[in-house]
């Protein structure tokens, strides 16, 4: 299981990042996910990948509900991700990241989770439905609403051209 888990870390980390909007929080969430999976084990009838995504999502939601912090992560200057970007247009990229995080943070948890899994991770609907234990139709409707909302937000704030 160890090798498989290690191979999954980048995907879980990216998922955690899309949920939290903060590299620091994403790494905390990744660590919590690994520890939880190792401590509780994986049911025989569930594959590790699906289980890790589910655990990650659950920890995020539990944590979010407990602390009400992550929703505002993108709005807090101290949590911005200047270190994530580099190269020629740090400022422009920073603004784009901030916008993306802010828009994602406005989504309800259930929609954010689905769009993270489908759009960012590229998981098939069926797999997402199994991970989240929801009907396929629910995956499609949440995804549709999330995409529509984000699309409208990104239209309002078109991507800047490099100076």
């Amino acid at each position, binding site marked *: 299981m160890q090798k498989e*888990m*290690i191979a999954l870390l980048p995907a879980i980390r990216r998922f955690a990042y899309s949920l939290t909007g903060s590299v620091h929080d994403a790494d905390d969430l990744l660590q919590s996910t690994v520890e939880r999976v190792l401590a509780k084990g994986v049911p025989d009838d569930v594959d590790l990948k699906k289980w890790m995504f589910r655990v990650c999502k659950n920890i995020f939601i539990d944590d979010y509900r407990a602390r009400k912090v992550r929703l505002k992560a993108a709005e807090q200057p101290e949590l911005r991700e200047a270190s994530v970007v580099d190269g020629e247009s740090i400022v422009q990229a920073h603004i784009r990241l901030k916008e993306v*995080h802010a828009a994602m943070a406005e989504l309800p948890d259930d929609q954010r989770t689905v769009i993270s899994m489908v759009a*960012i991770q590229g998981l098939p609907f069926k797999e997402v439905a199994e991970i989240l234990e929801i009907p396929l139709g629910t995956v*499609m409707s949440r995804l549709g609403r999330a*995409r529509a909302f*984000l699309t409208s937000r990104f239209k309002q704030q078109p991507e800047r051209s490099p100076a």
Partner: protein
Amino acid sequence: MTISDEKLSSFLNGSLPEDEMATIRTLLNSDEGLMKRLEQMSQTDEILIKAYSKIDDLPLPSDLQARIDASLHYTNKSSRSKLSLIDQLHLFLKQHAVAATSLALVAGIGVTQVLTTEGVSNVPFGQTEIASVLEASVSGQPYELTDGTTLAPRLTFTNVDGNYCRQFNLASDTTASQNIACRNENEWQLVATFYSGTGIGEAPYQTASGGTALDFIIDGIISGGPLSKDEESIAIGSKWNKSIQQQ
């Protein structure tokens, strides 16, 4: 015809029934507004991927990597130790696809049948002469039992449960075997026997890797390396009592 966001989103993923996919494809040819919505939705995905893939370029913080490594290492050790010795042996047999016809796994509380060179004994292993020799004799030299059998302790190690184990060979004129016994609840218990030949004079069974037949089992249950000669002598001197050794 109005296409909902949900439908368009599912179309983007190619997840609609084929007839609905075909309908939307047809509409896209004539409905510029629909095409624009689709493009914008697609661009939204690209923006998300671009934004959140940036974390892939960042290495895991070293302290986080260390904590994860430690968690994985700790869990590996502890999960192995949760298995009983017999379960570990069976697991390794299964994993290594070893022909079990010549290998006997006899571990378990209450198992009193002891495989000796003379056949099956009803005497508990812990009360046999073999156990007495294992209790008090160092590895590397042969000991002759009263029935003429030669017992040769080969090495001593600690298993993942923290118990001492010894690998030893038994040989008589008619039979030869390699064995593992582990000390549990203050007595030696035989956990594995591999019949390696018909008796003295036959070359001992060797695996392809050059080890003995039971080496792969030892690899699966050993914690750390074999005890050194000095460590083994200390263990014997303390009657295998670790608390005495630490004093």
